[in-house]
């Protein structure tokens, strides 16, 4: 019980700290931040329930006024901005990532985590994000999707990283990777 609590809090903090790392610019000029890597890791390492709770805790602290979203954003303004779907999608995406990682327990850890990160951390997150953007900007879903496609290659790199990191963690600390425990 105590372990669940500290793990959830630690991954909420990890999502925040990864968002503070300055963005890397890809070859074609799109900045990528490591924040969503934290969301993926919360799911792949902690599993659906705890991973979702970690991202939810992170979202709660952000809305209360801590500048933890990448680029130092935070506060209630997030709810009115076009990226609201991505912020609200974090807990959903972490839950989905963890759910898929847990379901694929027959596959090797790295593969299961990578698949979870792609389907949950990219698929589900973009579904939420694009829906929010299309509502706030008053444009169709397809038009909103066009605006964010440039970020998908960066997120694929992050999903692969999430798979590799989860495998490494599983080798280094098998007991702490709760999605497999």
């Amino acid at each position: 019980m105590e372990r669940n609590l500290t793990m959830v809090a630690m991954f909420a903090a990890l999502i925040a700290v990864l968002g503070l790392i300055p963005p890397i610019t890809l070859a074609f000029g799109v900045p990528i931040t490591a924040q969503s890597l934290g969301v993926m890791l919360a799911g792949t390492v902690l599993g659906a329930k705890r991973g979702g709770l970690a991202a939810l805790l992170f979202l709660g602290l952000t809305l209360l006024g801590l500048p933890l979203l990448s680029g130092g954003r935070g506060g209630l303004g997030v709810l009115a901005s076009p990226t609201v779907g991505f912020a609200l999608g974090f807990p959903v995406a972490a839950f989905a990532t963890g759910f898929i990682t847990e379901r694929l327990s027959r596959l090797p850890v790295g593969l299961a985590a990578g698949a979870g990160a792609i389907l949950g951390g990219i698929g589900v997150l973009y579904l939420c994000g694009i829906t929010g953007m299309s509502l706030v900007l008053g444009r169709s879903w397809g038009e909103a999707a066009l605006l964010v496609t440039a970020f998908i290659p960066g997120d694929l790199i992050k999903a692969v990283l999430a798979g590799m990191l989860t495998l490494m963690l599983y080798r280094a600390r098998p007991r702490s990777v709760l999605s497999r425990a």
Partner: protein
Amino acid sequence: MLSLTAPHRTRAHGWPAGAKLGALACATILLFALDSPAAMAGAFAATLALYLTGGVTFARAGLRRLWPLWPFVAILLAWHGIDGNPALGALLALRLVTAVALATLVTMTTPLSDMVALVQWLATPLRRMGLNTRPAALALALVLRFVPSLTMAAGRLRQSWRARSARKGPSWRILGPLAVHALDDAEQVALALRARGGLIEGTTSDGT
């Protein structure tokens, strides 16, 4: 840790957080009911005036936080302009900026402690129903402590990586050790919590 609350106090810092949030909700609903660009421009001007009542430094700090919206404003204006409806583009862009500005204003004038107190008050019915909200409060406090400690650990790892490597700049290579560090820290804090009686003790001492 830094928060988005404005450092120098305005009169609004002392107002109850619940009232400010309620007013924000009403104002936002009102914004979405307005459908003429002129009225929306008026709402935007009124919001700017609200910022200026906090002083010029305060207003400038607030407006700087709206800066990340510019690509969306540009997209809205360009898109609806091409569609032959620039008035709609202006309406949507003004509404977006005004809604975010109002919400940011509440965040800037409400200390984190007030927000947390409000959340605790809102959770009162849950406690009455027998739900223990202490773990949630503890988790919140733990995150506030873990963020600076993880940031420091990342800094140390980056430094030692630089000392070993000929290449400059931070690398994704520190992510692995950083994640291991995070897991170990969480395990140790869990152990420390358990050694001090854990979470169950809190439930009984609360009397709930």
